[in-house]
């Protein structure tokens, strides 16, 4: 009979086989006294792999695009669900459709927020003399970074720093000297592949301010049916699109932080969603009122006479528009203030702005 001698401490991160119907597998990494234990749970049994500190040759973490893929899938599901519930509502009851639509948006919105909040995703692997093993449980950069920082001193202590020096780079024959792990205080040799320039964020500020203005205009438009308000809203949308494209170009190879970049990309997703919903509204209105089909001006005038209370779809567009613009505007400005506060041109050690 086996005896439990080693006490293991769970390290962050757990991967699950989401689409496995036959077995509910999960994988997790544990810290032992002198090794890492990789545990794979297959519902009724567990398999183990041990990586002793003295045998580990390298730990590698690479950022992956998994988070963006999940977000796109969630966005597609949210739009698909909204359209489906609207079609159900058109055939049956408007209230049922309203609840369904709200349910879809809230559900996928929460999942979207959770996925975005957990941070960027990554893939990790551990290399020993005889094999390379993927660490599937370390899926998020934040978790992987914590685990790397925790085990790095342990591995270094187990192997000692004396033998550090010659590391093969592009092949077995060619060797070069590299720095020791950061724990023993040797300066790193990190070199960004492209020069990073400072971005003041002027266009970002304009984008977020226009989002806030758009939110305020939509609130007023919710209660007042006026042609000028509708026109202002349409013009604001075009202005936001222009500012968005400019901000996206400006933040390329700049020192803009990940949060701020994420908000700008979210604004792109939000505007795309609003355009899809607007197009849907145009199609529906055209079916009900054929006279506005071929005339944009007539359509704008028609929209200005519409009240959100008249149509479930219009109500949805208004609610998403008010909340989306407000949240993105506020969050964007907050992130921009952080950028201004912590990355002034002189302190950041980067060249001054080009413009």
């Amino acid at each position, binding site marked *: *009979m*086996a*005896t439990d*001698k*080693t006490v*293991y401490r*769970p390290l962050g991160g757990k991967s699950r086989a989401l689409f496995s119907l036959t077995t509910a597998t999960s994988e997790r990494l544990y810290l032992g006294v002198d090794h890492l*234990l990789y*545990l794979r749970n297959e*519902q*009724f*049994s*567990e*398999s*183990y*792999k041990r990586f002793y500190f*003295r045998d*580990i*040759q*390298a*730990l*590698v*973490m*690479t*950022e*992956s695009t998994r988070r963006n893929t999940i977000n796109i899938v969630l966005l597609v599901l949210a739009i698909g669900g909204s359209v489906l519930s609207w079609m159900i509502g058109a055939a049956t009851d408007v209230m049922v459709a309203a609840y369904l639509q709200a349910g879809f948006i809230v559900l996928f919105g929460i999942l979207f927020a959770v996925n975005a909040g957990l941070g*960027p995703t*990554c893939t990790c692997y551990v*290399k*020993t*003399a*005889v*094999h*390379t093993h993927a660490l599937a449980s370390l899926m998020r*950069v934040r978790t*992987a*970074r914590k685990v*790397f920082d925790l085990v790095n001193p342990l*591995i270094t202590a187990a192997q000692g720093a*004396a*033998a*550090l*020096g010659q*590391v*093969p*780079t592009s*092949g*077995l024959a060619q060797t*070069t000297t*590299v*720095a*020791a*792990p*950061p724990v023993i205080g040797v300066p*790193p*040799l*990190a*070199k*960004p*592949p492209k020069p990073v320039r400072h971005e003041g964020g002027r266009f970002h500020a304009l984008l977020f301010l226009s989002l806030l203005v758009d939110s305020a205009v939509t609130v007023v438009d919710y209660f007042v049916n006026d042609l000028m308000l509708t026109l202002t809203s349409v013009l604001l949308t075009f202005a936001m699109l222009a500012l968005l494209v400019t901000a996206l170009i400006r933040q390329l190879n700049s020192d803009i932080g990940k949060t701020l970049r994420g908000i700008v990309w979210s604004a792109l997703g939000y505007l795309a969603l609003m355009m899809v919903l607007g197009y849907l509204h145009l199609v529906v209105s055209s079916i009900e009122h054929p006279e506005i089909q071929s005339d944009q001006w007539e359509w704008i005038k028609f929209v200005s006479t519409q009240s959100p209370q008249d149509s479930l779809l219009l109500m949805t567009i208004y609610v998403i528009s008010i909340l989306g613009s407000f949240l993105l505007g506020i969050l964007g400005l907050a992130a921009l203030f952080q950028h201004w506060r912590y990355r002034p041109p002189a302190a950041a050690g980067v060249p001054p702005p080009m413009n």
Partner: protein
Amino acid sequence: MASTQLTCGRCKETLTADVFNTPDLTHCPTCGAGLRVLLYPALFKPLAGGSAGERLMVDGEASCFYHPQKKAEVPCNRCGRFLCGLCDVDLNGEHICPACLQSGTQKGKLEALESKRVLYDDIACSLAVWPLLPFFWFFTPLTAPAALFLAIRYWNTPTSIVPRSKTRFVLAIVLSSLQILGLIVLASVMVINIRSQ
């Protein structure tokens, strides 16, 4: 032998020295993906070769238990038998003879070599819970006694190698006992009804 080359997890291109051992994320020179690579001395330490064991040169010198013509180098940490360099298996700093290694692996006494465990608590718990789901209730006469048997039979058997409570076993015992009790009551009521008719 495995290659000493390290590759980017995204583009699979070989990494160069300038991305090694950085305190935080750096970028892959090829694809630009965020990257962190920690290297350790083991990467450039050659693999230790096996020893065939020295021949016994002097009479009266201690010899290997398995190879009497070879010189003993270390005793087995488990059984105490003398071992030559060929028979000595270094297991995480412990010297073990092949026989102890085999028996330890088979009986699960060497935790460092354990690569799989059956989770009897999960099996018992599943057997007790599944009949509670719709369409599975008619399996109760089979699953409830099986769950109770497994929970009692493997109560003292270590489950996972990592810390784990007995909650699943307790749940299996409670649920399966209630199911068996329910079956007995149901059967009794049916017998009484049949007799009364």
